[in-house]
């Protein structure tokens, strides 16, 4: 119950903050060592992380969108719209976009997840203005030329089929639909063949206009730049960004989201038969939303279970028994309830052996307290990988923005290691018993696999 209340309070506080900014006509800023966040008059959030180590700068925009905010008929609209951004704006043709950014050695990229979509430009720091102006132009003035809509529709439909061609990806999609039968998280990021075939230019434009607004956007600037420079430039570059209220579904979800993700009443198993070489097994358990107090213990639990080569699943299924090449688990962090996902690929003849071994490792976590050395190693795995991944400048930018999108704040980046460090063995046992209760399984395997 606490998790439903917390984001609400956070939102109210945020709204109060925004209100006070508007009242005073100036940006509200929060600083922590190494980074700062500023909410501009337009409602746009700007996060700056100066990092002079390389001569590069990243401008990354993250917006609340993706399956969580998509009505069933609009499933895949976020991914579709992102594909339209680089295909021309009112000011630039697709060729001019490409030539401008790649002509100076810059990279334009992005991603879409269950809760967000992102767009970034990485450039040498002397081209910061260009990177910033380009991201702003794409967020504000995308053209949606009817011919380009049809091109992207073809690309999108192809991507859906390419995903289906990969059995593990297929199993992951099936698992999502099984874990979240009533929540939009059941919908794939790419949408479905039906929705992508049916979406009209007008629907896409409306989605763009409703979601690509200042109050729904976080801009992160990371790299060889000072806070003052970055903020000054961002104010000018993003000045024309559409204003308007955040997407309606956001407010609506805050009140009903928990009801949309009831605990599974009984174990679920879906199986798709295909002529694949290996059998692919995924097992999922519902978890908690980002910001919940049980997130850190669940994150540690996941590391014990399936992160790295010293994790239980790896040691038991692969090292001791040689039953898989790929085996492990991931905690999927979400704005709404996340989940733990175990996965393995094995010979079709050992499907049930591996399936049983995976469930047995889950059972062990519920039955036995964690030995101190294993707890310690799991924490090292998490914190060590976290630090190593953040050597990458784009990853630094992405995570600061993502934490804003998730509602836990950019400074979560600094709090994370402490939260993990405080987790005890009894916390892990408690969350194992509380959350690893009713599994959902999705299996993609050839006929006769057992």
């Amino acid at each position: 119950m606490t998790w439903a209340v917390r984001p609400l309070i956070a939102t109210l506080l945020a709204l109060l903050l925004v209100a006070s900014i508007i009242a005073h006509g100036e940006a509200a800023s929060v600083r922590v060592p190494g980074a700062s966040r500023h909410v501009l008059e337009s409602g746009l959030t700007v996060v700056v992380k100066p990092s002079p180590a390389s001569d590069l700068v990243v401008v990354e925009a993250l917006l609340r969108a993706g399956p969580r905010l998509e009505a069933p008929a609009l499933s895949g609209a976020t991914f579709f719209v992102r594909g339209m951004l680089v295909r021309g704006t009112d000011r630039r043709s697709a060729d001019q976009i490409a030539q401008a950014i790649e002509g100076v050695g810059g990279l334009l990229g992005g991603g879409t997840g269950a809760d967000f979509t992102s767009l970034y430009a990485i450039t040498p720091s002397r081209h910061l203005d260009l990177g910033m102006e380009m991201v702003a132009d794409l967020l504000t003035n995308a053209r949606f030329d009817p011919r380009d809509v049809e091109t992207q529709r073809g690309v999108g439909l192809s991507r859906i089929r390419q995903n289906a061609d990969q059995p593990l990806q297929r199993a992951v999609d099936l698992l999502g639909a099984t874990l979240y039968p009533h929540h939009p998280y059941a919908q794939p990021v790419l949408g479905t063949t039906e929705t992508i075939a049916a979406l009209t230019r007008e629907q896409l434009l409306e989605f763009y206009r409703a979601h690509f607004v200042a109050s729904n956007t976080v801009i992160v600037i990371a790299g060889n730049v000072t806070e003052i420079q970055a903020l000054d430039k961002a104010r000018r570059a993003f000045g024309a960004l559409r204003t308007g209220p955040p997407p309606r579904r956001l407010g609506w979800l805050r009140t009903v989201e928990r009801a949309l993700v009831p605990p599974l009443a009984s174990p679920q198993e879906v199986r798709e038969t295909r002529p694949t070489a290996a059998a692919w097994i995924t097992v999922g358990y519902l978890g908690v939303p980002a910001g919940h107090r049980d997130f850190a213990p669940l994150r540690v639990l996941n590391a014990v279970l399936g992160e790295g080569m010293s994790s239980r699943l790896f040691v038991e299924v692969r090292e001791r028994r040689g039953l898989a090449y790929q085996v492990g688990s991931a905690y999927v962090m979400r704005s709404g309830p996340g989940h733990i996902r175990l996965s393995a690929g094995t010979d079709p003849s050992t499907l049930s052996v591996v399936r049983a071994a995976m469930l047995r490792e889950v059972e062990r976590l519920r039955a036995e307290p964690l030995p101190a050395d294993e707890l310690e190693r799991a924490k090292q795995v998490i914190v060590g990988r976290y630090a190593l991944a953040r050597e990458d400048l784009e990853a630094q930018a992405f995570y600061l923005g993502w934490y804003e999108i998730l509602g836990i704040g950019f400074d979560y980046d600094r709090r994370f290691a402490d939260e993990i460090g405080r987790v005890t063995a009894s916390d892990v046992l408690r969350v194992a018993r509380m959350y690893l209760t009713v599994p959902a399984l999705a299996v993609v395997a050839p006929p006769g696999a057992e």
Partner: protein
Amino acid sequence: MRVAVLLAAVLAVAAPVGVIALPVAAGARGPGAAVRAVLESGLTVIVQEHTAADVVALHTWVRVGSKDEDDETNGAAHFLEHMLFKGTAKRRAGEMDREIEGIGGVHNAGTSLDWTYYHVAAPSRHFDRVLELQSDALMHSTLDPSELERERRVVLEEINRRDNFPATRALELLRGLAFTVHPYRRSVLGTRSTVERMPRETLLGFYRDYYVPDNMTVVVVGNVRAAQATAGVRRAYAGFRGPPVQRAPRPVEPPLESVRRLAVEQDVRVAYLAIGFPGPAVRDREVYATDVLAYALGRGLGARLRQQVVERSRLAQSVGVSFLTTEDPYLLVVSAITEPAHAEQAEAAILAELAAVAEQGITEAELARARNLLEGEHIYGTHTTRGQAYTLGFYATISDPEFASAYLGRIRQVTRDEVQRVARRLFDPRRYAIAVIRPAAR
């Protein structure tokens, strides 16, 4: 280029089970040039001080890959790579994993056509410890027989997993088609039957013959002092000796004299095309112009093939070009994904565009875009300790350490004429190979 077909050509000991896919890379600007030493044993050591993060990347590169295999031993280099994680004279299987992960480190390995590499990243204060762990695995692995049997099953599962990625499989089929005698025709993983039968003696032979000092390069990038790190490597590898590698000359691939075509039906919903044109080797001056050509045609939003075949004619939904730099002449590969019914038309459209480049060359703007994008990706790819270490180790292994430092300068000098000359030589419509994976006809 060094990362072109990374997914397709490098097989790692462990597959990532990720939450979010991010670009692969990590780090910051190195304050000085890389320092290189060749120890008395013949071991090459390259150290780059890099102080942006309190991290060290330790990569050890061995010049052995599927190119060193024959029909019997196919898959040995990769299988051996797995066995270096399965115990040494003083550590049992799994101990190294626990020790490295216990200090917040990450490690893995990869095998390709020409090389095998082992990498660790860890907080820099643990440098001596990870160096001891990695050098122990490289010098003193036991290839324990019962561990070997278990790992054989793991490698067979890895072969099963290949099917998970039709685009990768198309590339493997292409290699088997384009090469008839050169070992690049074989899969890095080997075949089910070679792996099922692979005797321990074969792996021991590869270990003895190729894991010798003058065939290895240790690369250290991170918050360390160059002199101390070099001394550390010298200590860790004290007593490491071995005769220089005796390599039999590899068969020279005869020129491709026709169009070779292979279509395979599989459980897929779109068509995956891989079209290969015989390209240069790392020692050829043309590698730089070939990299620029590959970028002009098939990398980034402004790439010629994307604009023509995806955006204008819409015959493909994805198209890209890769050119992996290799010891022996390899392939420039055009990969495309199309609707099954459009595969032939897409192939024709791609060939027509390549012919146009051979005939008229590329524009000044295309040249600038390709060179700058290559440079931008190179800078981005080396801004982390692991990216920098990978680049240094890669070029030192397939060429020499100077290759990496001279690379960007060479790219900047590439002219339109050179690009057109390469295009003319490569894009002969009568000489190429194409592999297609497509759905079964109904």
